[in-house]
């Protein structure tokens, strides 16, 4: 039977070879049967708590085998998982939990204590009944779960909601991108096939679960009956340790944002190590500088490199596999062509298909599209509309806001954004959200945030702030204030304090002048 849901991919591999390693963590392997048993117990526990199909369940756990089992447990119960960033401020976490009305939360005692210190979370628990499951071991124990390990028999439809990923919102609050099982399957099954994953593969899990790259790490790996290797959080900051981990874990497929690869190249000591098992390096989330890609090719000539592109709303929708011959020149690499049964097209300003070399906005259509933004029908409607070339039909298309150009060889080139959304270290950031966080301080009169290109991070955020009369804040105080509401990757790396912000002829903040002042 062809799997109709993401957890059925895992179950199919488990039924095929239950003793095969499903995940590796700190040099310990856990078999498909072990992970399946823990996931079943979590699902049965959720069902006992009265969880209904389609309800949302928060996953607020550090990356660990327990988090993987919890994620499958949530899907098996028929509910959808909402992965939360453990490094985000608790205010933001409480906001997300309230926004999507979670019915249960899977967390650890330590993380729960942090969360409980937030009055908004306490209020949420009082106002609605939220079942709390705490998992404190790296691998869940039967004592923690106290339920049957039989596979639950819950009917889940492929169009059911599978997970919600919260991304930066331009108006100051994060928005939840809803993905169905069908949307997830469309990418992960394509990827398992395209990269020829087999039960012998060992796939790195670098991205956190609230980042859409993690769907490949988890589900494409499960589809192939392969082993996902979770990078322990204590070594994530240390490129040399990550490189040693890659070698000792015998990683065969690596997937991360380009900035993590740049760190490995610059500081990982790769030239002194050997990676005989490594077959594929995949990267997505931002533009990988060509000079670093060439260095990577020179260091690892036997490895195939692939540039994947796609917003959370569609998951990966184009791929460009880097030719095995060394790249010439320094031109930006293309994002490639449509993949995973998706259709991509660029429309020019008059809504016509853009010609070769003409700038257009990229639209995506097909089974990978999101269901919408949680609780925001107007925002959904603004980007998810009728298919621009076949408007009379039922098909929908997602308007990405990304400007592209089709080359004569059939590959798309990414040119930039139509709006103020930027990427930094693979994360997508709405500059408006950072600006509204700054304007939330009573002493701040004006604020503008710019992304300044940076070789290593992709972009660094620079904030320009002018104060009202009264107490001035220094840079550290501004950063501290931002950390209360924004996740670390959205906190500006530099603050510039000005008397007032320059305005253009229309009375708007003159961003071009700010940018010039910076260079």
């Amino acid at each position, binding site marked *: 039977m062809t799997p109709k849901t993401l957890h059925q991919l895992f179950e199919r591999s488990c039924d095929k070879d239950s003793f095969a390693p499903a995940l590796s963590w700190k040099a310990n392997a856990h078999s498909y049967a072990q992970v399946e048993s823990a996931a079943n117990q979590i699902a049965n526990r959720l069902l006992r708590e009265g969880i209904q199909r389609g309800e949302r369940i928060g996953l607020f756990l550090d990356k660990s085998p327990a988090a993987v089992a919890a994620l499958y447990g949530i899907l098996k119960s028929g509910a959808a998982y909402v992965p939360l960033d*453990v*490094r985000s401020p608790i205010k933001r976490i409480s906001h997300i939990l309230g926004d999507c009305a979670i019915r249960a939360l899977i967390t650890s005692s330590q993380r729960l204590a942090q969360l409980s210190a937030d009055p908004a979370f306490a209020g949420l628990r009082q106002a609605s009944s939220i079942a709390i499951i705490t998992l404190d071991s790296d691998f869940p124990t039967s004592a923690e779960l106290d339920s049957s390990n039989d596979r639950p028999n819950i009917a889940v439809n492929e169009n059911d909601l599978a997970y919600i990923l919260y991304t930066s919102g331009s108006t100051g609050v994060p928005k939840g991108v809803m993905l169905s099982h069908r949307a997830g399957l469309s990418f992960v099954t394509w990827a398992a096939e395209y990269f020829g994953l087999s039960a012998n593969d060992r796939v790195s899990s670098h991205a956190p679960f609230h980042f859409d790259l993690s769907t490949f790490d988890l589900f494409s790996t499960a589809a192939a009956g392969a082993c996902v290797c979770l990078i322990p959080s*204590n*070594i*994530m*900051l*240390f*490129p*040399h*340790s990550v490189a040693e981990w890659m070698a000792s874990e015998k990683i065969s497929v690596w997937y991360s944002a380009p900035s993590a690869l740049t*760190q490995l190249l610059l*500081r*990982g*000591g790769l030239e002194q190590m050997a990676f005989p098992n490594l077959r594929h390096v995949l990267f997505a989330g931002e533009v990988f500088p060509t000079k670093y890609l060439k260095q990577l090719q020179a260091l690892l000539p036997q490895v195939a490199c692939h540039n994947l592109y796609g917003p959370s709303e569609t998951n990966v929708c184009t791929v460009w596999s880097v030719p095995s011959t060394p790249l010439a020149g320094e031109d930006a690499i293309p994002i490639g062509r449509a993949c995973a049964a998706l259709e991509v097209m660029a429309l020019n300003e008059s809504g016509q298909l853009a010609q070769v070399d003409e700038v257009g906005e990229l639209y995506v259509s097909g089974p990978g599209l999101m269901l919408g933004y949680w609780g925001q029908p107007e925002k959904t409607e603004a980007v998810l509309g009728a298919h621009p070339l076949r408007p009379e039909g039922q098909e929908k298309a997602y308007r990405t806001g990304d400007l592209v150009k089709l080359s004569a060889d059939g590959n798309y080139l990414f040119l930039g954004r139509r709006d103020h959304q930027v990427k930094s270290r693979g994360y997508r950031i709405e500059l408006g959200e950072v600006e509204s966080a700054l304007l939330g301080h009573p002493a701040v009169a004006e604020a503008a945030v710019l992304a300044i290109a940076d070789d290593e*991070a992709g972009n660094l955020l620079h904030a320009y702030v002018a104060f009202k009369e009264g107490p001035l804040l220094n840079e*550290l105080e501004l*950063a*501290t204030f931002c*950390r*209360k509401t924004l996740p*670390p*990757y959205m906190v500006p*790396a530099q603050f510039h304090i000005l008397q007032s912000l320059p305005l253009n002829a229309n009375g708007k903040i003159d961003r071009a002048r700010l940018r010039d002042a910076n260079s």
Partner: protein
Amino acid sequence: MNQDQIKADVLKYLKSVISTELLPAELSDDFPLLESGAIDSLELFKMIAHLEDAFGIEIKPEEIVPDNFSTVHSIIEIVHRHLP
């Protein structure tokens, strides 16, 4: 330069870049800097660049591992080892 002088510089630096909410008022030598989430990757490499400048030392990539940066104490140790 002795360990106390190194410590004074390291503490001053950490307090200038890390939010006070993430650090205890009295930063002890064995406070877990990495586990607490007080430092991210950009900050880590900025701090290493600062240590190299301030003390005229060079920290090799293979020394940039969790054991050498997990606490104030371990940072003092690695700086001290490199001083002539």
